[in-house]
């Protein structure tokens, strides 16, 4: 359906996106994962025809959208990271405005507004001005606006930023429903691993403008199939302990958190005795040592040496 070929975007001397290759098939939910500044928003601005790439091409149904953006604009619904709504208008008036710009009118517009309000759970608040809405309600309406014209492909740029867990769950369930019931293709960008793991059939991971991994959930986790993650918890983790871990050649990665240190070691490594020895040397008491299955977070850590939300 949509293909990005060797796509690059350069701002002055800085590459926001570098040689990006990816594809989206009809009916898929594809995740674009990466920390802030990874180049996700630039990539989706290019593939939705809002920004021209420096080099490369975006092909929609085998035609370049760089030369002719019309076909893709007709079928996409865009949910920007910002709340792209008029604060002084009600939910219904916002939907009327965005419906009208898609040439909807009369009964058709009214019916569509009703459907969308029902889907995003704001029917009861249709007459309220947006500035009185909670963050979660604004996010839901932000999504609703993009659904008015029945898009085939919906592009969501971090649609759950800054909202409460209930609203987040509601949005994730809504995205699932749109994909399942209306067969909408979804491109979902986020820096929340758990959202992408929950929603997406396939995932692309970006960092500093580069694509660093891609595949299904399982395929990506298999990158760490030869390794295991160990989480060590203590109330008094100190620098000596962390340094001992870092100096150990059998440990591939060490990440320090608050009262927790996460290490990645090759499978088969007998680390327990070593950890106890280091704890004794650093004069700390360990609360727990958990061996975990690899997560996408671990994969990102492994590939970049940084946590995803750094």
């Amino acid at each position, binding site marked *: 359906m949509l293909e990005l070929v060797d796509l690059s975007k350069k701002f002055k001397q800085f590459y926001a996106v570098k040689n990006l290759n990816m594809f989206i098939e009809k009916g898929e939910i594809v995740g674009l994962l990466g920390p802030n500044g990874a180049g996700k928003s630039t990539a989706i601005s290019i593939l*939705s025809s*809002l*920004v021209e790439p420096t080099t490369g091409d975006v092909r929609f149904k085998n035609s370049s959208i760089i030369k002719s953006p019309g076909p893709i604009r007709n079928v996409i619904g865009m949910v920007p990271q910002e*709340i*792209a709504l*008029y604060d*002084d*208008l009600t939910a219904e008036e916002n939907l009327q405005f965005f419906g009208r*710009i898609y040439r909807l009118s009369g009964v058709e517009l009214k019916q569509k507004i009703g459907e969308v309000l029902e889907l995003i759970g704001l029917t009861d608040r249709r007459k309220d001005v947006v500035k009185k809405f909670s963050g979660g309600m604004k996010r839901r309406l932000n999504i609703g606006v993009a659904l008015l014209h029945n898009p085939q492909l919906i592009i969501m740029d971090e649609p759950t930023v800054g909202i409460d867990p209930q609203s987040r769950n509601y949005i994730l369930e809504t995205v699932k429903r749109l994909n399942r019931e209306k067969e909408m293709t979804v491109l979902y960008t986020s820096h929340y691993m758990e959202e992408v793991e929950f929603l997406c059939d396939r995932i692309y991971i970006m960092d500093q403008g580069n694509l660093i991994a891609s595949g299904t959930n399982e395929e990506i986790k298999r990158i760490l199939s030869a390794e295991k993650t160990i989480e060590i918890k203590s109330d008094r983790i100190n620098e000596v302990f962390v340094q001992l871990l870092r100096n150990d050649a059998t440990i591939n990665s060490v990440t320090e958190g608050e009262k927790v240190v996460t290490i990645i070691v090759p499978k088969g490594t007998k680390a327990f005795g070593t950890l106890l020895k280091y704890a004794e040397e650093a004069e700390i008491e360990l609360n727990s040592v958990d061996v975990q299955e690899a997560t996408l977070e671990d994969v990102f850590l492994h590939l970049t040496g940084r946590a995803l939300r750094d």
Partner: protein
Amino acid sequence: MKGIFLAKIKMFMRNPWTFLIMIVMSVGFALILGGSGNFTTISVPLYATDESVRESMVGEMLDESDAYSFKWLSEEEMMGQISSGKAEVGVELQENDFNVIVGVSSQNTKMVQQTIKEAYTKKAQYSQIFTEADATTSSEKEQVQDELEAALDEPVFGIQSNNFRGSNAVIIDNTFHTLFGFTLFFVIYTIAYNVFYILTEKKDGIWDRVILSPVRKWEMYTANFVYTFITGYLQVAIVFLVFRYWIGVDFQGRFIESLLVIIPYVFAIVALSILITGLVKTVQQFNAVIPIVAVSMAMIGGAYWPIEIVQSQFMLFLSKIVPITYGMEVLNGVAVYGYPVEDLLFPISILLLMGVMMTGVGIHLMEKRHV
């Protein structure tokens, strides 16, 4: 385009405060600072030696005077006001004569004297006419007076009067100057803060959504341009209407012309706001730049003080590149100098040219910027 326009109107109706505040500011400043012009009359105390003078034609004429507010007082009260400095001048009226008592000698002394003299002259004229008409009783006098006034309403010969002045003569009318100056100044804010919404809409991603829709960009710009122009023009029209019908400034009979010649100025200010929106990068920058531009333009362009009193050649040169100079020129031309609109085509053309150029460059800059 209609959808965008309707949404803007709805938002305006829901939040008209900036617009209303700017109207109040325009009217308030023009009233306060222009108040020393035609809006107030000078109070002059009067004392009549004979009560019949007050009932006579002289008394009636003085009571109806527009130029001065004559107050009937006792002799002591009048003298008290003059000696305490509350009144510059007072008048003692007798049956066929008058005395002007001067406290502070000023231009008003002669003007008051002139007004009183006119009243006595008219009284003498009527008295002579009554004698010639052999009218002795009061009913006969009234009949003659009615006939005379009826005849004067339909004169045999019409008289047209005209003032003459040199081509370089300057008229500075404080009432019009403050009214026009502050109206043109405050409308800049209303227009600029409406255009500024383009910047916030772009920042919030609303424009991205519209770009992806079947609506064309020219429709978006046109809807914003038309809406901003209408709100700006509406503000000017409301301020002028307030002064015309509430305060009583008659625009020298050129009210409609004044409303027409201001159109190119509003157009140029919308264009200037688009240019500034294209030049700045953030909302904060816009908020900082607009007051600087508006105030400096008002100072340079003669909205705060008449451009005619400026001597510096450099300032006069700068005034040629700000729209407010030409806005003041066309309004003064129509309402103060009484020029026909054809004589104002030069400043009107410059405003239109400025408008076209600044719109073009402004939109180009906005489009060039990465969204």
